[in-house]
């Protein structure tokens, strides 16, 4: 993303080379936000994902769907670098997943919110924004808190929030820092209707700004905004094409 939350441009500090990590070029398809090649995960007692080849371009909003256990969470974890592939590889903006530059460009939200017990909501936002070298995050933080109706709770501990409020907190944390690829696992779970509507709008807006979004969900409200749908079944890709409610229903239930 190239908005006001972009990474610190450190041109002023060019002399301090040791503290800078340059992002090198790569041989993977140029311009793609996320590329996977024969990406697979064998858990030992079953395949989580079987040799997935995929290319996602900037600005795409991809719905990832499939029946339970189809491999959506495994794929998202692999793409985020939290799960290690047993075969194949993946790149974010040409950088090997898990590398420091790839981590800088990838925002991942797991299906269950992961929050510190001892930090307030605002402290969460501040330190996560700063750990991603985000510039001018304060104004955007206020906007996000306002959008998700959490302005009055910013000094509270999210660990004491309800499931829905925790989910909103996790979404804010995923959005506050700059990213080129946003990976979200079941983000609508626990959200109230206004929260769901806000999320759909935010995701569409983020994609419009140039980020690639891969969202594992069965929420039909996202379908009109989605530019692509990928179906998974038994760890293999079963569909790659436009998203429609009928198609999603058949991919999940059929």
């Amino acid at each position, binding site marked *: 993303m190239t908005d006001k939350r972009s990474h610190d441009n450190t041109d002023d500090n060019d002399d301090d080379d040791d*503290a800078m990590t340059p992002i090198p070029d790569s041989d993977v398809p140029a311009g793609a936000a996320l590329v996977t090649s024969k990406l697979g995960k064998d858990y030992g007692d079953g395949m989580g994902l079987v040799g997935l080849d995929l290319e996602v371009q900037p600005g795409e909003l991809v719905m990832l769907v499939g029946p339970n256990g189809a491999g959506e969470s495994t794929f998202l974890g692999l793409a985020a*670098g939290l799960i290690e592939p047993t075969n194949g590889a993946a790149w974010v903006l040409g950088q090997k997943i898990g590398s420091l530059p790839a981590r800088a460009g990838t925002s991942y939200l797991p299906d269950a919110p992961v929050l510190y017990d001892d930090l307030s909501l605002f402290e969460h936002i501040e330190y996560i924004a700063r750990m991603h070298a985000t510039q001018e995050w304060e104004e955007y933080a206020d906007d996000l808190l306002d959008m998700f109706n959490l302005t009055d709770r910013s000094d509270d501990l999210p660990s004491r929030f309800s499931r829905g409020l925790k989910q909103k907190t996790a979404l804010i944390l995923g959005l506050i820092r700059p990213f080129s690829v946003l990976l979200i696992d079941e983000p609508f779970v626990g959200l109230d209707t206004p929260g769901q509507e806000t999320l759909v709008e935010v995701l569409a807006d983020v994609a419009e700004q140039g980020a690639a979004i891969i969202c594992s969900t069965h929420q039909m409200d996202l379908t009109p905004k989605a530019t692509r749908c990928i179906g998974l079944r038994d760890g293999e890709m079963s569909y790659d094409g436009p998203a429609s409610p009928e198609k999603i229903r058949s991919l999940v239930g059929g």
Partner: protein
Amino acid sequence: MLIDTEATTGALRDLRRARRSNRLENIHWIDAVYRVYITALFGAIGVIFLIGKLPDDKLSAASLDKLAEQGPAALGLFIAVAVAFGLRSGGRGGPLTLEAPVVQHELMAPVPRESVVRGPAVKQIRFMAFCGMVIGAIIGLLAGRQLPGGVVGPTFFTALTGSLIAILATGTAMVTSGRRVGWWIANAIAAVVLAWSVVDVMVKVRTSPLTWLGGLAFWSIRVTPVALVGVALALTLGVLGVLGVGDLSIEAARRRAGLVAQLRFAVTLQDMRTVVLLRRQLSQEKPRNRPWFGIGRGGRMPQIWRRDWQGYLRFPVPRLLRMVGLSIVAGLSIGAMWRGTTAMFIVAGLALYLAAYDAVEPIAQEIDHPSRWESFPEDSGRILILHLPAAIITMVVMCGIAAASSLVLVPGNVVGRLALPMVLSVACAATIAAAVSTAMGAPNVAGLLGFGQDMLGFVLAARLVAPPAIVVVSLLPLLGAGRNADAINSAKVSNLVAYPFFLIFAAGMYLRYKKPSHL
């Protein structure tokens, strides 16, 4: 595009500072001081109790010479076991237990990973070194009473050695984890390390660096300069571990983060069954896909009996080794008890209790699946009781292994005369104790509040202590055997064995008529 890692690392430092400050603000200092006081008080009582149980005659010159000669190798073997545990833990992504938010937000941020994990690694190695020092100091304090020259020297050197053993084991685990050494390779190295120390013990030589390190503990008796090589090894591995752990597996760190959080919660709740299950998940201990051998289908074998043995036949190697290992520990502890360290029967009882936790796995499986349970026509207590025979037979085998192990320290004729009356009662006690503990589940604290705040702590402690106490009590008849190997009073032991059976019967009734709290 460049990432300013100095700024991101600075943010990480600020985050940790904020967390520390928030935590300190929320500490209830009076509670914390009270807990430290209680822990210190009970610790001191325990040490004084143990001192009272140990013989305080000074060792003869010949015994001292033998101790200085053979002690380092024996301690070296113990160190090898600790290192083997470290290798095993590192091969599975341990020993670092990061919090889930640390993995999710810090390890996934554009911050050099060594900056993220170095702090927790130093904290963990420091804590382990402290624990090792305390344990070493207690051992030195206890052993020093039998050594010439007072307790200060032995206490200092055993505390130092304990601390270094902890640093060595933790550092080894961190190096293994940071280097991403595979599980099989780590185990193979552990086997070599163990075998080397076993050779030192058997052949009575000092070739292993772990034996050299063990020599440090005996410096109050005899100074062996080669121990400094062991010291250097321990410190080097500690430093290398902290420096190299940044390359740890994120997947393992994430898995451990989730499981350790649950494990701590289960321990807080005193839910021992959940602790056992989470511990197995943490070490990725899964049942075998195929049984060791088939027992066929059909026939007249009762269904519950058949299911029990089908379960045992799928036990993985680590679980079987753990049961055998605990039985050997029990046997050696009984041997030490025979040799005069009476309090070791408590260790023996605890070891058999832990072994029985695996033996009652079929019962635990029933309790873990309440929906399946509710579909059975039989009442719950009867099903639990019907599971017991297979578990008791398994524990009889384990008690047999314990008896055989005790031969290392106890004359054969003594073991022969006492094993027969004791094995069945101890096996029954261990089985029923583990089954009761499993069936009890977590305490209903809200319900127990009716006892009043003051009594609640005692009730919770009693729930925790009662099951292992059954096993410990079942070993008490051994004390009636006397100390003369040529005049063992096996008749008295046989008579005393009747008393633990009252306890076993009472526990069996509890199991039969008290519905498990999970249901």
